[in-house]
């Protein structure tokens, strides 16, 4: 049960396709957890800083290094939490995590040499899976440091939600790939390396070749550590206190992605705590009798039309959810309604309330 997970787990990863509202769901879970746990942290990698906005923070408060920010008593109150609840929010910048790894693993001279290469500076954009990898690295560190009882991770948007889980393997493949061997010839393979050098240099020109060489040479110092860490991450989900909350919306295309993700997680034996259906359309709240006296018959007719339209949407969402539920028996489903008229705090408060039932 999701309710129990909020009590017991140490890390919940919130996953789903783009636009399904992962950030809102993560924030809602964290609010629900903060009723029962003392130290809850919700963390995101979203560069749009939506999580900060959801909790009423100004971007300017975000410090270099990404130290978590604790919610003020006033905000906690608006979220329906006691003033002494411990809820913090953090934004993860992959660059900071990587810089930290560099500082810890290389000597200062090598470190600054690496940081000076264009490749390193643009790395976040260039290496697939790096963002995700840094998130794992960071969460692992936070769990080890034991500063928080529960960490809710809002996973980054990706081409496909499952990329998040493939990231450690991807990074590991890159680290173990022979591209390093081109630049760092080991004893016996110097002849093929030399041959390759010529081609690569001719193709790329001298400058990029020099840069790449410097990058790969210094990066080798980090490689072993990253490979070792990736190996540990494979076991990450076998920990009993880590699980995944899958988020989707009841529409035809997002549902396909949601079901694909569930199938993938099952295949990888990654534990799914619950499936959250977000942005679920509800029936019209139009009450004809209370409007009859106030508006013209013509306008009333239009309101009827609008009601029919809204109800049709709600029916469609309901049918969609029923169908998908039937295909995945035995899972826990939680529904968050589509809301237009509430402020952000109220949405989080009501969603969190739902999870107590």
């Amino acid at each position: 049960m999701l309710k129990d997970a909020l009590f017991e787990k140490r890390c919940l990863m919130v996953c789903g396709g783009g636009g399904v509202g992962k950030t809102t769901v993560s924030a809602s879970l964290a609010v629900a957890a903060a009723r029962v746990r003392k130290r809850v942290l919700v963390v995101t990698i979203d560069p749009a800083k939506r999580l900060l906005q959801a909790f009423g923070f100004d971007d300017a408060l975000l410090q270099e290094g990404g130290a978590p920010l604790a919610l003020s008593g006033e905000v906690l109150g608006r979220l329906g939490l006691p003033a002494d609840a411990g809820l913090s929010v953090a934004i993860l910048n992959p660059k900071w995590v990587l810089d930290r790894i560099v500082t810890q693993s290389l000597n200062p001279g090598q470190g600054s040499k690496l940081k000076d290469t264009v490749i390193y500076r643009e790395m976040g954009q260039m290496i697939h899976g790096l963002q995700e990898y840094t998130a794992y690295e960071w969460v692992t560190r936070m769990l080890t440091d034991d500063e928080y009882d529960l960490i809710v991770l809002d996973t980054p948007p990706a081409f496909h939600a499952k990329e998040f889980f493939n990231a450690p393997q991807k990074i590991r493949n890159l680290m173990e790939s022979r591209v390093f061997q081109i630049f760092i010839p080991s004893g016996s393979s110097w002849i093929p390396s030399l041959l390759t050098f010529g081609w690569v240099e001719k193709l790329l020109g001298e400058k990029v070749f020099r840069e790449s060489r410097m990058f790969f040479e210094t990066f080798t110092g980090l490689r072993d550590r990253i490979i070792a860490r990736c190996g540990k991450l494979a076991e990450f989900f076998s920990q009993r206190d880590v699980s995944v909350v899958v988020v989707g919306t009841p529409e035809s295309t997002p549902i396909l992605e949601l079901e694909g993700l569930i199938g993938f997680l099952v295949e990888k034996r990654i534990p799914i705590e619950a499936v959250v259906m977000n942005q679920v359309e509800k029936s019209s709240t139009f009450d004809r009798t209370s409007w009859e006296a106030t508006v013209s018959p013509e306008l009333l007719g239009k309101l009827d039309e609008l009601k029919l339209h809204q109800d049709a949407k709600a029916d469609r969402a309901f049918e969609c959810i029923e169908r998908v539920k039937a295909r995945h028996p035995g899972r826990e489903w939680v529904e968050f309604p589509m809301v237009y008229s509430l402020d952000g705090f109220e949405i989080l408060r009501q969603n969190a309330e739902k999870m107590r039932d």
Partner: protein
Amino acid sequence: MDTATSNSIIRDLKRINLISGKGGVGRTTLAAALARASAAEGKKTLLLEIEDDSGWDSALAKTFGRKHFQIEPELLEKNLYGISLSAAVGQERFLQTFLRLKSLTDLVMGNQGVRWFLEGAPAFKEMGVFFHLLIQMRSDFDTLILDLPATGHFVGLARLPEILLKMIPFGPIADRLREGQKFLYDRANSAVWIVTLPQPLPVSEAIELRTVLQKESLPFGGFILNRAPFNPFTEQEEELLEGFSRKSPAGKLLVDLERIRRFRESRIRLKEALASGPERAAFWVAPESLRPEQELLMSRNLKKVEC
């Protein structure tokens, strides 16, 4: 068939159109609808997407009853072709033009070291995609419509030449990067379109993305505000109803009306953003459809917002 009217979005499309937007905004559906509308006007149209190595079926190809697009333009419907841009294909084609001989290319591509490098080194994947795109931009298609991935990779792809040119200022790669850059940055022939939804956050993100385009000097085509709600009311009626529902005991708007209000606010914000921008850009609104099959006709229902 759709016929050309002054009100058709096809008039606002450029030769090269990059369709961008966050996940879940309906970008892929719109890209397919625009491509169909362009083809229906008799334009030889190419619909492009970037390969996805995760092994999932392509949502765009699915619209045309396929699992994936091919690596060469493939006829989908009359006048309409589809293609999947692939890193490996781009890399190979580039080498071929550089080395001229196919046999020599095979030799180099066959070289373990080169292959490892192309697969593993940062940015070379994107570079391959970029070259594959370049080949299509050079082709004789009248209209190109590229469905960009939902993530930040987009600005990555557009910025790729700039980043790489810092490292590779001369030589055959640099020449091609500059050629591609020239296509993408040419205001007369290219445009980036931003698809968004009538809700506060997506609208903010669309406006932010537009600022990024401006900073990168990429030509901006306009906003497409998707899933406009069903709205039978005149403006006066809307105001009247809002006044009533505010006074109602619950003190809350009807859910249904609230959606309409959000749409109106979104439209105003996007219009204002356009008015404050330096370039002339278009603004189109697409209605929400209850059934997926209606989405195929979407381009016909797009309405231009006068700014």
